[in-house]
């Protein structure tokens, strides 16, 4: 069997970073090819090049289908070549029926307008074929579960005679039974001659359906192997095999007594209130400690910490004890009053206030402290803000500069300053160094170290394993909403492989 698809020596640069460095992907006809890598390794960039989202000439390298060179300018070009990409964020129209979605922009014309009878019959056939049960061609997408939506996307792609089906993290939002159905369908499609690229870091799924696997790490291709020739440990090692540099300051903080205890904390998805995104989580935090929360995308890390801070849109319940006292946190207002502070992973939509300058962005959490009589004493405000801006080394032309004009790292430091201004007892940082340059990263680590020395306890969520290992005193690994494992890391002796094993649900494979 020859290669149906080849992507040769793909190089893609973004401002300041090389996202892909001579990556080659070879996919054989009629195989399921898994694409593996950590968050940010470059999987999505590769797929976006394949789909024509990044048009020809914005990258270097070439794409061949059946040995023929292709130059995709638009997504339409790649679709015509038989490539269908199903993204993690599904592109279906919620308020339209299954039929309308299936035939979007490709409606069958009858004598008078659209030939609905034909379209309904065709839809019926596809629902049958992919064994999608419990809905009719007229059912609206919003009344269909995520798992079935995924299958409808597949049907949509297959209807357009897609030869190469690309699935980007298809199982991230699915339940166990939904994943089973998806797997069965993919196996069935393979029998019918479809080639599939399956992006996932859930090793159980890869072992179950994939024929071969390509691993990329930090924008480079590590290797392509037949799945039967490798075990999961080998895959994990290839995914993470990276040395922890001396980027991380030495932690010599002695943790004190327990400050926070969370027990039986459960969080529900805001979209489907029955789905538990965090299940029965219990953990504690000591004074001056950095507790790392690790896990794959969709493991429930952000949901857990945002709920703890009272800022998650879904429902949640559980017991929270701060310094031995039962506390009830219903909103960020409660949390801030009790001494919690929260730095979101989504700096742009949950962090900065883009219309405001640096000063106002920093001082927003504790304006009331600057009030004399009824008005904000601006001099007092500037004095405090200046102190923290200096302490955190936020590089800004002036305090009146709009925050959007700062680099990502300095925006992050400004938002961190905002959360330190409230003098928190527990600082929750979700992805402390996402999207910021190496120098600023190190500054933030040193700062976290200093903060814990002064008695602040930190809960750090991170997708970057070296960061988790380099900074945390203890590590909690989440897998599918549950705390799968707790590691003591005071000796810095746990490995990335250990964490990845638990995060990918490794223990479940053994069973």
């Amino acid at each position: 069997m020859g290669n149906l698809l080849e992507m040769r020596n793909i190089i893609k640069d973004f401002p300041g970073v090389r996202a892909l460095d001579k990556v080659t992907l070879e996919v054989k006809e009629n195989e399921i090819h898994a694409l593996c890598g950590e968050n940010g390794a470059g999987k999505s960039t590769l797929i976006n090049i394949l789909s024509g989202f990044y048009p020809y000439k914005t990258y270097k390298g070439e794409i061949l289908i059946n040995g023929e060179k292709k130059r995709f300018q638009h997504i339409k070009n790649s679709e015509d070549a038989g490539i269908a990409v199903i993204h993690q964020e599904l592109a279906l129209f919620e308020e339209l029926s299954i039929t309308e979605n299936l035939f979007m922009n490709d409606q069958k014309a009858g004598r008078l307008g659209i030939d609905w009878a034909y379209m309904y019959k065709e839809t019926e056939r596809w629902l049958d074929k992919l064994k999608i049960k419990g809905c009719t061609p007229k059912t609206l997408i919003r009344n269909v579960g995520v798992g079935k939506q995924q299958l409808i996307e597949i049907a949509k792609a297959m209807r357009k005679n897609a030869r190469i089906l690309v699935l980007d993290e298809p199982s991230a939002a699915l339940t166990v039974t939904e994943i089973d159905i998806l797997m069965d369908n993919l196996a069935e499609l393979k029998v019918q001659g479809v080639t599939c690229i399956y992006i996932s870091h859930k090793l159980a799924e890869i072992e179950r359906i994939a024929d071969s696997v390509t691993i990329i790490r930090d924008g480079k291709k590590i290797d392509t192997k037949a799945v039967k020739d490798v075990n999961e440990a080998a895959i994990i090692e290839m995914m993470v095999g990276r040395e922890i540099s001396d980027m991380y300051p030495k932690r010599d903080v002695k943790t004190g007594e327990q400050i926070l205890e969370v027990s039986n904390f459960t969080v529900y998805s805001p979209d489907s209130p029955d789905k538990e995104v965090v299940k029965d989580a219990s953990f504690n935090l000591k004074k001056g400690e950095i507790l790392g929360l690790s896990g794959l995308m969709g493991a429930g890390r952000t949901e857990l910490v945002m709920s703890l801070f009272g800022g998650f849109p879904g429902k949640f319940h559980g017991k929270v004890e701060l310094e031995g006292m039962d506390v009830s946190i219903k909103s960020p207002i409660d949390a801030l009053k009790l001494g919690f502070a929260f730095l979101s992973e989504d700096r742009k939509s949950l962090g900065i206030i883009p219309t405001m300058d640096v000063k106002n962005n920093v001082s927003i959490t504790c304006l009331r402290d600057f009030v004399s009589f009824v008005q904000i004493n601006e001099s007092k405000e500037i004095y405090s803000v200046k102190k923290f801006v200096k302490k955190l080394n936020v590089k800004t032309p002036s305090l009146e500069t709009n925050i959007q004009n700062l680099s990502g790292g300095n925006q992050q430091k400004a938002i961190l300053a905002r959360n330190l201004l409230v003098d928190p007892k527990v600082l929750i940082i979700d992805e402390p160094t996402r999207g910021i340059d190496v120098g600023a990263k190190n500054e933030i680590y040193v700062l976290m170290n200093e903060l814990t020395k002064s008695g602040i306890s930190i809960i750090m969520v991170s997708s970057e394993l070296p960061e988790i290992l380099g900074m945390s005193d203890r590590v909690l690994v989440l897998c599918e909403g549950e705390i799968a494992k707790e590691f003591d890391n005071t000796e810095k002796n746990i490995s990335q492989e250990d964490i990845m094993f638990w995060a990918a649900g490794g223990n479940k494979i053994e069973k």
Partner: protein
Amino acid sequence: MKNSLLKKINLRTYMMIIALVLIWGFFTMLTQGMFLTPRNMSNLFRQSVFVSILAIGMALVIILGEIDLSVGSVVGLTGGIIAILDVWNGMNPALSITITLGAGLLIGLWQGFWVAYMKVPSFIVTLAGLLIFRGILVGITKGTTIGPLSGVFKVIGKGYLDNTVGIIIGAVAVFFVVYIVFRSRKNKVKYKFDTGSLTVEILKLLIIIALIAVFVWTMNSYRGVPVSLLFALIALVIFSYVSRNTVFGRSIYAIGGNKKAAALSGINIKKVMLNVYVLNGLMAALAGILLTSRLNAASVQAGTTAELDAIGACVIGGASLSGGIGTISGAVVGAIVMASLDNGMSLMNMPMFWQSIIKGFVLLFAVWLDMATKNKNKA
């Protein structure tokens, strides 16, 4: 130094003041100087009071990132209420004014409740309000025009302050400005900040004092400072202060800039939104009282499309409908721009239909210019 000073002044408001000066120069030329006479200036400011007051309330709503389409109807309804209380019931003016303002407050509470707590889009809530309040007005006035009002309202609507009172007010304003500038300097010294050059500060002060003097002198050369203008000035000072110097004001800007981030920063979004609508209701009621006083009667048509003038004034004055950006003073300058267009074109005896068309184009052009310069800054 000079550069940073220029930066500190809200560039968009600044541009609007230049535009205002250009408009005034233009009309002065076309009317052979008639536009700039004290009599006409007095009229112009009196005309701008109504939209200014509405624009002041509306500015808070727009900075919050919301909208209020109902203020025209609220003006009509509260204008009707005061006329009924005064003309039909012969109530004491102080009491009837209090009740009317209370009605405006309740209306704001009602709309704020639906927007903030029931999470219905403000466009819909206030569109419903537009219909509901106009309907109530027609119902309670039985479709009639109610007037004339008692003497106090004539003073409020059409009266002028004595020349000496005008001078005293001017003097108080000067004293106030000087006091604020020097206290802020003192504060800066206390926290060891760079206080900037004293000469520049004094120069700035002198310009402001000169403007106040010219204003009082112009008004006094005709009949004195109009009483109704006093309401607009007081509202301008209070609302500017609230929006710039209080936690509430800062919260409005934060919510308009990024609602989710504001919530995570511990701002009580619902409470702030409710209060903004209450203040806007209050301002609409004040505008209703002033309009009824000036016309000396309440009619079912009073205030129709006033919301559009108010929104237009805010936007011309640099407020962004996506929220987070805008100033109270900008909104007032916008209202004066609108009033100047009305006034100038009327002086030129331009037909009404042209006035409407030209105002529409000015609004469109002002916002386009604003967005074009903003995009340029980003690139």
